[in-house]
């Protein structure tokens, strides 16, 4: 069983986001970047399934600029076996989920993948589309927002999904696409020996030129980016009389 895990380099979850002055995006210079937290969970899931013997090989994939290699090194340090970087340095705008999905579909057939595990969404785009699109392009079953995964047999998984009403449990035949939700697992730290070993693990670099048959044009244009409206300051009153008057004047009293 060979698994493809998708990882994306995003602004670190703990960083306070600032909108660029030109309102076309967010500040990215000098900002700490890390692996998308849901991708960490996806990677951890693949590693646990490998430790249990269900998966034989984990291939980590990242579609992004040169620095995406750092993110791939993290997944290798966690325990992925090899990595593929699809370098998009020569492309101006970030590829959209559909383009990513198309690339992943190609990689699935090139690398003979049996199971795709992605994070449910990235914390920068919050699109929550790539996993679903990959499944549709492949014609594979999908189990998204996975909060627990059990192996039933060599080609069946039982997956619990987090949905609005609670949990939905599916039996999923393989090959399939899973997307990881928050409660699926707690990702491990990268251990020192594994960090050192990661340097020796194979990392293949491709570019979009390696996928000539795919149309990867962007179809979405960002018009503006604005921060959420700031909370206005409250008013402090000194006495109950003032409070009563303030409530009355604002029409809150019958």
């Amino acid at each position, binding site marked *: 069983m060979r698994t493809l895990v998708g990882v994306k380099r995003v602004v670190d979850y*703990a960083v306070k986001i600032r909108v660029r002055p030109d309102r076309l995006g967010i500040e990215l210079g000098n900002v700490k970047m890390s692996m998308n937290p849901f991708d960490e969970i996806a990677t951890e899931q693949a590693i646990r399934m490998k430790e249990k013997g269900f998966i034989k090989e984990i291939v980590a994939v990242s579609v992004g600029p040169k620095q995406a290699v750092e993110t791939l090194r993290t997944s290798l340090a966690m325990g992925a076996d090899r990595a593929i970087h699809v370098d998009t340095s020569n492309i101006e705008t970030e590829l959209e989920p559909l383009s990513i999905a198309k690339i992943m579909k190609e990689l699935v057939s090139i690398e003979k993948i049996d199971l795709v595990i992605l994070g449910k969404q990235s914390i920068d785009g919050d699109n929550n589309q790539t996993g679903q699109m990959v499944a549709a392009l492949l014609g594979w079953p999908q189990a998204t927002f996975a909060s627990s995964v059990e192996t039933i047999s060599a080609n069946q998984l039982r997956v619990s999904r987090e949905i609005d009403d609670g949990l939905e449990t599916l039996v999923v035949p393989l090959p399939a696409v899973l997307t990881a939700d928050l409660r699926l697992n707690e990702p491990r730290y990268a251990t020192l020996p594994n960090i050192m070993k990661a340097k020796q693990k194979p990392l293949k670099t491709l570019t979009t030129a390696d996928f000539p048959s795919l149309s990867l044009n962007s179809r979405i244009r960002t018009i503006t980016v604005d921060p959420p409206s700031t909370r206005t300051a409250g008013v402090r009153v000194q006495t109950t009389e003032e409070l009563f008057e303030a409530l009355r004047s604002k029409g809150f009293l019958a």
Partner: protein
Amino acid sequence: NCLNKQSKYQSRFYQSVPIRNPNFAKIDENDISFFERTLGINNIIKDESRLEKYNIDWQRKYFGKSKLAILVNSTEQTSTILKYCNERNLAIVPQGGNTGLVGGSVPVFDEIVLSLEKMNQIKSFDPFSGIVTCESGVILEHLETYLNEHDFTIPLDLGAKGSCQIGGNLSTNAGGLRLLRYGSLRGTVLGVEAVLANGTVIDCLTSLRKDNTGYDLKQLFIGSEGTLGIITQLSILCPNKPKAANVAFFGCKDFDSILKIFRNAKQQLGEILSACEFLDNSGLEYVLNHINGTRNPLEKKYPFYMLIETHGSNLQHDQQKLHTFINNLLEKEIVSDGVFAQDLTQFKSIWKIRESIPSALQHAGYVYKYDISLPVSCLYEIVEILQKRIGNKAKVIGYGHLGDGNLHLNVSIPKFSQEILNQIEPFVYEYTEQNRGSISAEHGIGLMKTEALHYSKSQNAIELMNNIKTIFDPKGILNPYKVLPTKKLNSP
């Protein structure tokens, strides 16, 4: 109910109980009117339940009996108040965040608590020099948030940052987690404005890097725990916020390995090393058992753990240095296991383990808490010696700022026991004296260690301190019974 706790613990805390200075007046209605007129009714606290937070320290070991807490809003008000109290012979306890660990921040009897909490303005910041000027009551974490916006950072960091105030940090010469890299407040503080007991304002608030004009008075206010004057404003030199911060957590089989890692870290990480902390397995277990949302970063437990943090201006360069360092440790088998934070969330989780130890111990019951400076090579010996001495009635834990030679020696027991206390003191102080260490590396003297001061300072030195105190505060109204040994003692 705090009163019950008070009666249970009251007898313990003073190795020799001071007696209330009979020269101090008691507050009367005229005093209250004066304070109300000067500060406004909202800044006078007389209600007993509201006074609890001013009367009781963080560890709930020291219970003051003050009937009044007053909040000042300016240096001028502070001066007016002190002048009045000095004339009236009313004793004052200056208070910041009340996070101190030696009973120095709360009253012993009915001293008035003068809180700086409302003097929380950041006055100015110069982005070229990194010098910030602010009032004493600014909470350390707020100052850090402000500085971060400008790409700077405070030169000190401690677990109490969410509550402690910068004025209190100065008054106690707080050390903290980054002293190794950024030095002590004695180096980073450039100017201080303080008010003396008689209301005189001493303005040494310059923000100059170099100023050799006469005696450096600010150094007297720094670390004197509010006994020589009340610090109202300060200016401090802040370093640039590091572009790259990394943290690694190691598991080691013995203390010797910890020392080897430290030596290697200094050699190979050199200028980017920003913190070097250690803890023993007991420390980790208390945290895992008592603090939510913590887990062992390593797969197994080890006798010792070490936390190494680096701060640098270039992520790539720092990571190269770190990889060389790690490779070296693995090849020489100095480290049994270790992990490296991959993102900010992991970074904070690793730090949380070290920073939560005091809270974890607090949850677990009663803590006998000591803070000693010793030669780094024998830093942990006392933990083992003390554990043997006590037997299995209590647990001895050791952790602290390895890089500074500062051990936080704690003894945890479900309930206070005088018997155990007698086995700890004066043994720990005597051991420290024999090793020419300090009986208080960074916590200060407060009320707790006034009678132990002689273990680390000579009689002549203590006498000179008394003389200085007399000059600064002839009536002794500022934070009485603290720091210097009391002249009159009686044993419990």
